[in-house]
């Protein structure tokens, strides 16, 4: 009977918290595996959502390298850099939260989830400030944009606008994902506070942790592609 699927578990079962085991799974372990796999599959989809943008970015950057470099040099690397640190720190607090859930230390779990959520909020706030400085710097096509200043440095303003639209759509989509993650973290914190998680049953923390790390990793790719392709003299 070695072919019998991996669903039966010999290990002694800890009684699941009431209402946490759906009727079509054999036990919590089975359910947790399925849920985590579901998140991985979802992340594959997410990869392709951003993938379309990366493909478009790659096409236009290979055609208009000068315009992309010039426009990239005008982005606010100081805020972009600080935000990178903020987001990486939030990944650390996230992974510590998963650890706390495994160990069953309730107070640490709640604190770390709130901290993760807060760091995400700090990122968004800084991002909003950055968008505003971009606006002041005439970097918002259609709203505040000066084609003349780009012609003076022999760059086609239309191509600069292409870079900028990818900058706004990519960072915007990233921000939407982050907003979603912040709300999820807050909900998880409340759930943890109400003792919804045990060392045996905390898949929600693990699986949304995967999501959080994915959003961070996207940023790790956005930073060099958007901010670091120019030779700079200043950070801002």
């Amino acid at each position, binding site marked *: 009977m070695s072919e019998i*699927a991996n*669903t039966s578990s010999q290990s002694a079962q800890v009684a699941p918290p009431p209402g946490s085991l759906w009727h079509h799974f054999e036990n919590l372990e089975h359910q947790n595996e399925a849920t985590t796999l579901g998140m991985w599959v*979802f992340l594959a989809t997410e990869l*392709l959502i951003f993938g*379309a943008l990366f493909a478009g970015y790659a096409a236009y950057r290979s055609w208009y390298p000068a315009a992309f470099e010039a426009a990239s040099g005008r982005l606010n690397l100081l805020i972009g850099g600080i935000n990178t640190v903020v987001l990486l720190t939030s990944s650390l607090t996230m992974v510590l939260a998963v650890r706390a859930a495994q160990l069953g230390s309730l107070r640490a779990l709640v604190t770390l989830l709130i901290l993760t959520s807060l760091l995400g909020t700090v990122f968004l706030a800084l991002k909003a400030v950055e968008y505003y400085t971009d606006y002041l710097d005439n970097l918002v096509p*259609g709203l505040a944009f000066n084609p003349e200043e780009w012609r003076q440095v022999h760059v086609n303003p239309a191509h600069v606008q292409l870079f900028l639209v990818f900058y706004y759509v990519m960072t915007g989509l990233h921000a939407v994902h982050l907003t979603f993650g912040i709300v999820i973290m807050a909900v998880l914190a409340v759930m943890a506070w109400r003792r919804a998680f045990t060392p045996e049953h905390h898949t929600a923390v693990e699986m949304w942790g995967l999501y959080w790390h994915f959003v961070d990793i996207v940023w790790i790719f956005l930073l060099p592609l958007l901010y670091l392709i120019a030779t700079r003299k200043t950070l801002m």
Partner: protein
Amino acid sequence: MSTLTAPFRPQALATPPPEPKANYLNVSYGVKSWLLTTDHKRIALLYLVSVTLMFFVGGAAATLIRVNLLTPAGSLVTADTYNKLFSAHGIIMVFFFLVPVVPTVLGNFLLPMMIGARDLAFPRLNLLSWYAYMAGATLILWVIFSGGVDTGWTFYTPFSSKSSHASVIPAMLAIVIGGFSGIFTGLNFVVTVHRLRAPGLTWFRLPLFVWSLYATSIILLLATPVLAMTLILVAVERVWGIGIFDPALGGDPLLFQHLFWFYSHPAVYIMILPGMGIVSEIIPCFSRKNIFGYKFVAFASIGIAVLGFLVWAHHMFVAGQSRFAAMIFSFLSYLVAVPSAIKVFNWTATLYKGSITYHTPMLFALGFIGLFTLGGLTGLMLAALGLNVHVHDTYFIIAHFHFIMVGGMVMAYMAGLHYWWPKITGRLYPEGWGRLAALIVFIGFILTFSPQFVLGYLGMPRRYHAYAQEFQVLNVLSTAGASILAVGYLLPLIYLIWSLRYGKKAGDNPWDATGLEWQSPSPPPPDNFAEPPVVTCGPYEYALGPGVRSQESGVKIPETEVHNV
């Protein structure tokens, strides 16, 4: 009651288990019990109603198109209305009928039952997917009835991004929302197949319908997000006026076409793969034989899913891509015909020396094989670079993909709907009417679309509301065929609804089929199986007789007869 008899019936089946009182239909009543259900079988029925509605709306648009083309002047509607009609037809049929129909209706109902599970892995996500579908469908219907959209289902730039004055953004939003419904379904199916198979149900004991749904899900998951992002970029361009796809502003309309077809060519396989899966179930059942070359058919599904991602630019042979790119895409397009041909040959070989009965599902399935083969072979003609230039954007293309989509996919869906109707509803459809409908659909289809091959080859371009005088005879033939086809589609709508009340009781397994889904009562209980089944052999052991797949039946199978295939 059925004229079918198996080679032998296991004796254990002579004393059927007592009928469970509750089934999924009568376990609870009321609007709320349906709109908030998480039972995959009920969600499948919700989808059945909504998808059928969309099919007839899209069909109404097609009817108006065909009536307009009766005369060379196109006297029924104006050119502008005609543009909106074919756009409505294409958008509804592709995004709201062909892509979702088999996975969400038959797949939702059958996938858990075929693998011996109680439900899909994520029942609430399944319900959410229906709501996403309904939101998208409602929005697109609103767009169409409040003025329409005139871009065609392809939304080519720069027309869609700059020139069109129609409600392009709401239409694209509807498709994006509907797309998420497909992503949720695909995610659910992948996890379910991985994690919820019954004990003993190894990958190579899975029914081929499950394999094809698995391959479909992978495409849904990896292609749909690209379409969503592409349409969002077009919307950004329309709102913001930045030339993402506008050559005057440095953008590239070809980039749009690349991104669009990166979804929309694999989407063709989203549409046809589940149909192939249905046929792979029906052919063995009505030939009373194991499928020929199980592993080849299973891997052909995966092969199609993989190769399908690598052929998208064969839609762009005249759009100005490099000659080498065109040659590579032409070659790869030939290659994708190989797994499809493997399937056709294996179905044919399954029929060979089978004891064949011509029930309605079998008639539709045989129709599928013939029409799909014709559609596939003309696809090869289109993959040839030289010939493609001659027939590009003509009615030849229209005929080709309708042979695949209507002659193939819709036929397969009808086959599956009739085949599993007794399981879904507990009632038999009227067999005589069913056979008549299959015949009418086949004849109507041939008459509608065969003339279009000739029209296209003679040079009649697609998407024009008027045409040259010499094309009229063939167009009248095509419209005549379309009206026969319409009868063929309305007939099942009537007798299937009729059968809900007046049809004969079906019994658990009217076809003496071997699938796990047939070992559950019809209609199935809310949890699908009284006891989780244990699987001991492959899915099409017609030589052993029905009911041997599960330990429940009490039949002991000698070790030597337990096949892994």
